[in-house]
């Protein structure tokens, strides 16, 4: 076959792939959210398995990062199993978000919440409650779970925005930001907008409401000077402790809340810890991270950052790759 013919065939194949991806995003993926739960989550797992087999780059990245951070604690065979579960969890989380449409009941009825009495007692004391979670399991929807059950919850969360993305992607991001990330239409506090985030967070707690925050992301470049080094996964992770200072200033109790997926992939448990009792903000953060570490070690596939090498480097869990030495 001539060079020109081969190029034409490759272009045609790329166009077909784009069309299939478009059809999947527009038609198949949203429809999965309307299917009965056992079927929807089975499809999500199959999609995850497909990605595990096809997306070699992501699979190898997860396996390498697990080895680099956890070392011999996870055998090579387990690393592959975790990578496969990671891919499945990604698509199961997408189904969770799709099932949050309207009242969200088609998802919330699949989730058991443990420790809610602790939050009830905190709100009865009138000082609000800070719920700390991690990029763990279905982390994007976990606060919406409480919002859908009628709890007044606001999250500190960067708005997802991709200015250069396609119209379809922009539309799905808008739906995500409005319906899922805002916890039933309550606006989030965007930590990157000006200097008001901590004050807005304190206001939520002073109104005796719930405030949700993710404690494990790497700091943005502008905030890196203010990170605190805390023990995490056998290393020193650089994370921000500012929200703990807000909790201390307002006198609100701090809880760790994590969403675990069950072995059947569709049922989940949202577990709220006893209140964290620590003196200064850095100690409170360390205690919260200890909860997260226990969860990550028990359910490694749940943790988002295994596939994100740059974030692991920014967190301080991985060293930047050494430059290749010439000669």
């Amino acid at each position: 076959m001539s060079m020109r013919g081969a190029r034409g065939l490759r272009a045609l194949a790329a166009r077909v792939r784009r069309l299939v991806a478009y059809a999947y995003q527009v038609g198949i993926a949203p429809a999965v959210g309307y299917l009965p739960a056992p079927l929807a989550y089975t499809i999500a797992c199959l999609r995850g398995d497909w990605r595990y087999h096809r997306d070699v780059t992501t699979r190898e990245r997860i396996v390498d990062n697990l080895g680099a951070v956890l070392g011999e604690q996870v055998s090579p065979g387990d690393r592959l199993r975790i990578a496969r579960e990671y891919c499945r969890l990604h698509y199961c989380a997408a189904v969770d978000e799709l099932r949050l449409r309207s009242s969200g009941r088609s998802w919330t009825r699949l989730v058991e919440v443990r420790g809610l009495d602790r939050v009830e007692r905190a709100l009865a004391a009138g000082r609000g409650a800070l719920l700390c979670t991690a990029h763990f399991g279905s982390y994007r929807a976990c606060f919406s779970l409480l919002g859908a059950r009628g709890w007044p919850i606001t999250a500190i969360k960067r708005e997802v925005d991709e200015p250069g993305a396609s119209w379809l992607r922009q539309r799905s991001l808008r739906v995500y930001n409005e319906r899922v990330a805002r916890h039933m239409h309550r606006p989030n506090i965007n930590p990157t907008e000006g200097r008001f985030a901590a004050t807005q967070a304190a206001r939520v707690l002073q109104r005796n409401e719930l405030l949700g925050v993710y404690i494990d992301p790497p700091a943005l470049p502008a905030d890196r000077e203010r990170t605190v080094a805390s023990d995490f996964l056998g290393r020193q992770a650089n994370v921000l402790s500012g929200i703990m200072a807000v909790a201390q200033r307002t006198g609100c109790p701090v809880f760790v809340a994590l969403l675990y997926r069950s072995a059947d992939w569709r049922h989940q448990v949202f577990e709220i810890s006893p209140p964290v009792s620590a003196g200064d903000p850095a100690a409170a953060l360390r205690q919260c991270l200890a909860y997260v570490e226990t969860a990550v070690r028990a359910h490694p596939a749940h943790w988002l950052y295994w596939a994100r090498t740059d974030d692991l480097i920014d967190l301080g869990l991985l060293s930047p790759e050494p430059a290749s030495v010439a000669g």
Partner: protein
Amino acid sequence: MEHAIIDYISEELVSDPEVLPLHADTPLMDSNIIDSVAFLNLVMFLEERFGIAVADSDLTRQNFESVNAICAYVRSHVPAGDRKAS
């Protein structure tokens, strides 16, 4: 009022001594003089010291861009009977 606010920011909130001394027109928002948590402490200080309540809608750049702006904001919100005292 101006001195009380400058003293509070200088003594309690500023972590980098190189930015001192502060002036009434020193920009607070553009520089790294105070971070988000320090800003919360400043708002709580203003509320306790001057007996005002800073509404969510008043948390704007315009009201807090400098000590001058903060003084103007506080003066417009101090209860009438307390104005002389402040």
